[in-house]
């Protein structure tokens, strides 16, 4: 049996009306923003399942936009996020779409740039404000945003994993989980860590010659 804390029963302090449709949506938006370059000028949200059917009534649209603007799920400005995006000159678009065999509360967030290629993140809100990110730019992945997380794409050669883990251990960082997949000799690694990511670490790993792409995010508040 789970050991409950008083704050599991009285809490979280949250913006209503629904932890999965509002708080979870804001978290997916914020994780996507942390992953993407923040010079986007337009964002398209593809809403699937229950997100598509009830997004207006639950304020899922406002929560997602708040997230991509960098707000946390407990931010009282969430209800005004559409206006805030407009004031910042960011174009927002919502499209109801069948994203296939995914969780009913799923969204694909597509960032558009003037000088960079489009970037997208797919995530699902799985209840109680918990989320999972399942795809970035076509690469299937899975992480929750509960831990500091590093995502790396690299040319698969011997010893890369060990070099990455040495860098982490030199910074006194313990690896909580690590998952590596490979397609066409390009490996994708998702590493969840026990302590926060500092800027230097990402740069140090990025300097390894095999690295194609790297990004890191710290945990997103509930």
């Amino acid at each position, binding site marked *: *049996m*789970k*050991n*409950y*804390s*008083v*704050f*599991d*029963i*009285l*809490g*979280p*302090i*949250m*913006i*209503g*009306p*629904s*932890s999965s449709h*509002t708080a979870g949506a804001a978290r997916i938006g914020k994780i996507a923003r942390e992953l993407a370059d923040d010079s986007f000028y337009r964002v398209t949200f593809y809403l699937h399942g*229950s997100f598509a*059917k*009830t997004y*207006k*009534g*639950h*304020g899922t649209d*406002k929560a997602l936009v708040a997230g991509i603007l960098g707000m946390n799920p*407990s931010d*009282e400005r*969430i*209800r005004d996020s559409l206006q805030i995006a407009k004031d910042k000159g960011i174009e927002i678009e919502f499209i109801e779409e069948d994203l296939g065999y995914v969780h009913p509360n799923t969204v694909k967030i597509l960032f558009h740039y003037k000088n960079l290629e489009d970037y997208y993140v797919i995530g699902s809100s799985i209840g109680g404000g918990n989320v999972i990110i399942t795809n970035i730019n076509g690469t299937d992945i899975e992480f929750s945003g509960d831990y500091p997380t590093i995502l790396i794409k690299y040319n698969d050669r011997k010893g890369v994993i060990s070099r990455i883990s040495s860098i982490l251990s030199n910074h006194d960082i313990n690896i909580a989980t690590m998952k590596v997949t490979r397609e066409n000799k390009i490996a994708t690694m998702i590493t969840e860590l026990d302590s926060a990511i500092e800027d230097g670490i990402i740069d140090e790993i990025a300097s390894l010659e095999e690295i194609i792409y790297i990004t890191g995010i710290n945990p997103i508040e509930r």
Partner: protein
Amino acid sequence: MFNTGSELIKLCNEKNKKISEIVIEKELLNSGIKYDELMNRMKEILKTMENSSKYSLDKEVVSVSRLTGGNAIKVEEYKNTHKTICGDIINSAMAMALSTSEVNASMGKIVAAPTAGASGIVPAALFTVKNRLNLSDEDIISGLFTAAGIGEIVARNATVSGAEGGCQAECGVASAMAAAAVVELAGGSVESSLDAASFCIINVMGLVCDPVAGLVEYPCALRNASGVANALISADLALAGVKSLVPFDEVVEAMYKVGKLLPESLRETALGGIADTETGREAKKRI
């Protein structure tokens, strides 16, 4: 330290302590956080509850869907200007419960207690006894620990999720949490606290979760209003000495079994009950 109501009663009697004191001891032991930090976190909860309970009493707060709202201020003004049937206490409590529900539905800040859908009941009950018995913020904070302790027992042995157990598991349990706290704050025994909690759940045994259009609004807000009334009358019954024939743990077990017997259409899917009425279906189309 305790998994059930009977274990909680035993612990309280052995140590000659209130439920709130035992819950605080348990929390300090399990979480490892310091006493001051624990109290500060609960103060933050109290502050948010206070804001949400009062926010809609003097202004019309309408939901994001525009389907519901503006009822907290109606009840508050009715109470202030009319000779009401139930008196100031019940009307004020209902107004506060509606206020939090309306804040939630309008994307304001609330505390899930135990869920967002039932978030109006515990604060409305506690602020009602605070006014009635001239209690301090510290008293109300201890009441919050009592309420949380009761909720933990239900979450451990049954469920507090509408999708799993229907509204009885959300609003019913919120009322039970509130009633136990009210009894303790009014000087009742540990046994009376649990009797009051039992009455609350018995009163709404089988209550289904049937939100119109799948939104946490209607009938949710109404059930927060009736839920706080349920908590207050159950507390009075227990304080008067009425005992529950069936003990709390068995009532919780019964509630859980009934929840499992409910078809999926009556567990938050918005496919049955009030959601599946002509008007309910029509409202869904409109938003």
